[in-house]
């Protein structure tokens, strides 16, 4: 019997900022609880981005601390008690900021990787 140490896999080791952005984005469509947020990200990214609970919940705490989300206990459709998170107006603004920064970053990288392609061609 061997034991693995539970260090996060590189694939799911997202930068804090990027994870925050994904969560905020997910919440844009309405309030959700932690488990659902994780599932949504996973589904929407076609299983590429698998956010571990160990990253997700601290991230949610971080977002709460910064005032970008607020939480409250509620009931799921299956009448299960869960803690739901919701975007605040500040959170919305932050999301827009992050989104534009992310786009800028992605475009810049694209220009370096494929210099022959005209910008915006892969929109």
């Amino acid at each position: 019997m061997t034991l693995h140490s539970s260090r996060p896999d590189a694939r799911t080791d997202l930068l804090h900022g990027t994870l925050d952005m994904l969560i905020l984005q997910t919440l844009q469509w309405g309030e959700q609880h932690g488990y659902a947020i994780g599932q949504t990200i996973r589904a929407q990214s076609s299983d590429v981005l698998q956010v571990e609970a160990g990253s997700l919940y601290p991230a949610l705490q971080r977002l709460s601390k910064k005032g970008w989300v607020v939480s409250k206990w509620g009931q799921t459709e299956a009448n299960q008690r869960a803690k739901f998170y919701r975007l605040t107006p500040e959170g919305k603004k932050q999301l827009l900021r992050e989104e534009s920064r992310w786009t800028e970053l992605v475009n810049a990288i694209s220009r370096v990787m494929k210099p022959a392609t005209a910008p915006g061609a892969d929109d």
Partner: protein
Amino acid sequence: MFDKDDFDEEVRAHLKIAADEKIANGADEKTARLASLKEFGNVTLTTDAARRVWSPWWLDALHDQWSDVRYAVRALAKNPVFALAVVSVLALGIGLNAAVFTMLKGIALSPIAGVDHAARLSVVFAETGNGRQLRLSYPDYQYLRDHDQAFSGLFGTSPFMPNLGRGRTSRQAWGELVSGNYFQTLGVRAERGRTLLPADEVAVGGHPVVVMSDSLWRRDFGADPDIVGKTIEINNFPLTVVGVADASFHGTTVVYDVEVYVPIMMAPQLGFSFGSQAKTPAGILADRRAAVFYPQGYLRPGTSSANAAAQLGALSSSLASERSLADADQQLRIVPFWRTPQGAPIIMLPMLAVLSAMGLFVLMIACGNIAGLVLVRGVSRSGEIALRLALGATRARIVRLLIVENLVLALPGALLGVLLAQQGIPVLVRYIETLAAPQRVYLNLGVDGLVIGFAVLVACGSAMVFGFVPALQSSRVDLVTIINQDAAPRGAARGRVRSGLVVAQVAVSLVLLVGAGLATRSVDAARRAYPGFDSTHVTAITVDVKQNAYDDARGRVFYRQLLDTARTDTGVESATLAAFMPLGFLDTASRRVAIEGYEPRRGEDLAFMSNTIGPDYFRTLRIDVRTGREFTVRDDDTVAPVAIVNETLAQRYWGGAAQAIGKRIRIGDTEWRTVVGVAADVKYARINESPRPYFYVPFLQSYRSAMTLHTRGSGSVDALVDRARARVAALDPDLPIVKARPMAESSRGAMMLFDLTATMLFIFGVAGMTLVAMGTYGLVSYTVKQRTHEIGIRLALGATRPSVVRNLLGRGLRLGAVGAALGVAAAFGAGRLLASASLLFGVSATDTGAFIRALTLVLGAVLIATLVPAWRAARTNPLQALRHQ
């Protein structure tokens, strides 16, 4: 801000939702729950990470440390033997170092009690071409004080030993003759009345006042509330008490407890002439050749000692033009307070340096032990460490945990060590007090915050440094090998480190023991060495007739009568008088001398120690008179002045004993004395001094109020002492006897440094050896435990028990041998160091006997420490050993 219960509930909710989903997809409840848990990952870590979002980073670190500490305490409580071992070892090492540090502090860092920043005082002295260090005259001091720019205040103080009171109750004490700005510059206040002021330094003989110390006021005057205004007699001169100095102040003479402070203007009235030949009090203080003060003070802020030295250089030249030509070669020098010429700190310096080095050595051994212990602990906890790593701890975390454990041990170790030091220091002080008796001693040897801080720093430093590497090693745990109990490769590496530690400990211990051996042999040699005189069956009774207000005339009569009665006493062969006794450890005052027929070279400064003696001196002390004769009762002040010189003086300046007879020498500016005899050399101060010129003058031509009576006789020397005392008492029952003992006892002072060094080296050596034994024992036990399996196999396969023992013994002794080889090499160096510090006598730094004895002791300790676990190993039951996993 972080609600843990809320979070726990959130996690539980997450797990339930996830499990429900899996159940909905067809899994059974149990599988679903397990899978959800597995997917979630480490709940504890997640909770922790969530909590950390809310706390500032330093609070996190603190929280971690605190849980480490709590864990460490619990773990140590489960293994009290280990904890106790480490704490005791540390306490020993720290205690010794704390004691040495306290002494250093008392002598160098804060040498003057009751004065802040005393260590920053600077002292000025005059240096002759020969390197002799002199006090400045009073006019020179005034000149400096008025013209100097470097000091913020320059005071002068001259220690003296006055008699307090008169008659039977009088006693000698320490005092200081001070300038008016003494108290002000030092910042010492009076707790009653006033201190001395510049106004007390105006007219010679015009300020009959005194300030007494708090201890004198309490001890001798019962803390009399009306003490101010009362009169006390000092050297039979009445002085009015104007104040009592602050209780924390004990004067600026390190080691001695100063009890009275008198204005310098009163010095001539109290009988002091500072070597001046002037006849009037004013003349003495105006004499530019008198040696009065070492001016001292604080340098102005911003003035470096280099600046000050340069300024003094300039002042030197202007002073030289005002002094007579013979003194023109003197230069003014400035040194920090601890280097005050002939001060206690500078005399004790070699010994303190050696003690510090030894303390550090013992600490090193102790740390080696601790490192070894930590290593072993690391091994026995490898399973636990593996688990922690599995749970997500980083190696850095593990290392931090182990180090915290060390610190948890280090602090009690430090405090215990300080306690040990606190117990040991009074013993040391009492030793110094007995040597200094009957003078009162005061050493600023308080164990204060500084010492505790030092101890804690050293302890934590040691714990960190010596716990760090083993901690690192221990954290390097490979889980696979641990679980499979395949400890061999790791064990070998750790075993090497541990062996290295033992080797180092053996080496250091050897150095200490060799040092101890050399020092002890020095003490023996010093005791047995022939100092040039024979003090067995000789008494030494010291009196000072000034204590009963005798004047010159009465004093001479007294001593004459004393000699007559003592000589005719039963059992007495001969009797004589002397001002000083040989082997007094400290040099007595040197006097400037002119030698007939010898022209001193430029910058050569002829000054020698001398003694004032009565008739029959050399016969009484069995000192050989090479040519010429002794002094007799006829050598009094009605005939021409005479002198006796020693062989070295005769040889060096006149070419030999025979040539010396009839030549003349002159002390200072007095009349020329004719040499009538040449005596063999004697050890005048220390047993290991090199031959030096010395001369004697007859008591009847050079009266002193304080003399020592020597009587030689058959029978018990104690009986002789009693009879001599009786003679003094018969002549004057009111005259206090300063000291009365066999002469041999008084040379103990010369041995003090050897004795002390030898004792301390021995203590340190034994401490080191104990630690080595512990370390070796631990190592071998550990090895045995590691190889229980292997030993069991060997026994089962038919190996005899003795062979197992021999095998283990060989291992231990091999370590001992390597350590010994290293230690011997280091000990050579250490021996040379001791020799250069003049702490060895009559034994070479490479004395074989000392080395052999030390080797035997250390290897013996290693042998025993190896034998015990080896013996136990040999009694292993092979079946049990084989079953051991």
